[in-house]
């Protein structure tokens, strides 16, 4: 006699328990703190867009405390922050960005539709974190173009930076090909025209100079 024939419900019970355990497992699975919400393709496309850029002149209202929908985070470390920072900025050093409370803060700001601007010493420092946060769904996070160094140079007249062409990123500032060409156009050709070393012999002036 086959064992299943003892209780025809046995398989069904086992199956139900199995499915129930699976469901409980999935439900209680600890969700990772961050998950990518932007796939690779969109992320690549986003590198061409201007959405993640926040410009210095847009900060004018913020610094004068008129603009409440922008929060500025300084991601340099605490020591450097203490030596000087953009007025109104909060310090959230890069090392602490991955912490749960930082993420929670960003989450809260996102829900309030607040623009979060990150800046580091230069734009490069904020570039990575901003890209990552945008990829995990915080599309309110932007990077301050130029970073703190640029702010420091222009803090007296932020609005004037609106027309600053040096701010343009990823533009060749030199004509590379021309600049890296041989220093004077003919330099390479000169190799062939080898200069002959001229050996001039002194004339013997004295008639009686001796020798063998």
């Amino acid at each position, binding site marked *: 006699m*086959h064992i299943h024939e003892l209780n025809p419900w046995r398989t069904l019970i086992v199956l139900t328990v199995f499915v129930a355990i699976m469901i409980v497992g999935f439900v209680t699975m600890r969700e*990772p703190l961050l998950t990518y919400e932007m796939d690779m393709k969109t992320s690549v496309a986003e*590198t061409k867009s201007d959405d993640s850029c926040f410009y210095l002149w847009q900060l004018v209202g913020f610094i004068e405390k008129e603009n409440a929908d922008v929060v500025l985070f300084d991601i340099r470390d605490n020591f450097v922050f203490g030596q000087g920072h953009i007025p109104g900025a909060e310090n959230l050093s890069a090392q602490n960005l991955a912490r749960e409370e930082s993420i929670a803060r960003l989450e809260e700001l996102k829900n309030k539709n607040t623009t979060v601007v990150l800046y580091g010493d230069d734009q*490069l420092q904020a570039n990575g*974190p901003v890209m*990552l946060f945008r990829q995990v769904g915080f599309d309110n996070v932007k990077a301050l173009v130029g970073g703190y160094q640029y702010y420091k140079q222009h803090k007296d007249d932020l609005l004037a930076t609106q027309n600053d062409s040096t701010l343009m990123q990823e533009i060749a500032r030199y004509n590379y090909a021309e600049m*890296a060409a041989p220093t004077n156009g003919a330099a390479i050709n000169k190799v062939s025209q080898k200069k002959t*070393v001229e050996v001039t012999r002194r004339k013997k002036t004295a008639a009686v100079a001796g020798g063998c």
Partner: protein
Amino acid sequence: MDRNYIYLTILMLVLAIGTLLVNNEPKLKQIEPQQLLLEMVQPTRYVTTDQIAKMIIHGDPSLELVDVRSADEFEQFALPRSVNIPLDSLINSSSLGYFGIPGTKVVFVSNDDIAADQAWVLTKRLGFKGTYVMRGGLNCWMETIINPQEPSEGSPNTAYETYAFRKGAQQYFTGAKAEVAEGSKVKVEVQRRKKTSAVAGGC
């Protein structure tokens, strides 16, 4: 007995249909966002133009320069031994083959360093190791290697050493080797001893 098999069959059918709903898009392996965040706050991915120049001059076989500018810009000027992978074709399967080869250092190069850093973030997200960013990009390359500025007086000794290296590198990269031959070649001067007195000498 039959009923049990029916249950099992139904379960299998359900699971089979379930697999149809699973996203079929070929997924690239990615690292955890948190891991990525921790890695990107380390400045270890940056290499200087001097380091790159040194590696090129020494013919370091582990160096793989990846130029992420457009094909046009690449055509006009590119660093020696670099390959062109424009940023928008970075994750094409043909491009991905360049990354993650054990023992190679992939260094991203762009006009500045933002685009190169973006390429770094994107490839890092896919879990590739051994990728770097040339700090300052080609603009900085021009300023430091192709047209180095002499350090001001009173600069530390290292500044002069760097300058001396850059000057040499400049000659290497601008093909101005002829200049080296002219400028630094020791002039052959044939100096003859002066004979002081008329009667000096004799064997």
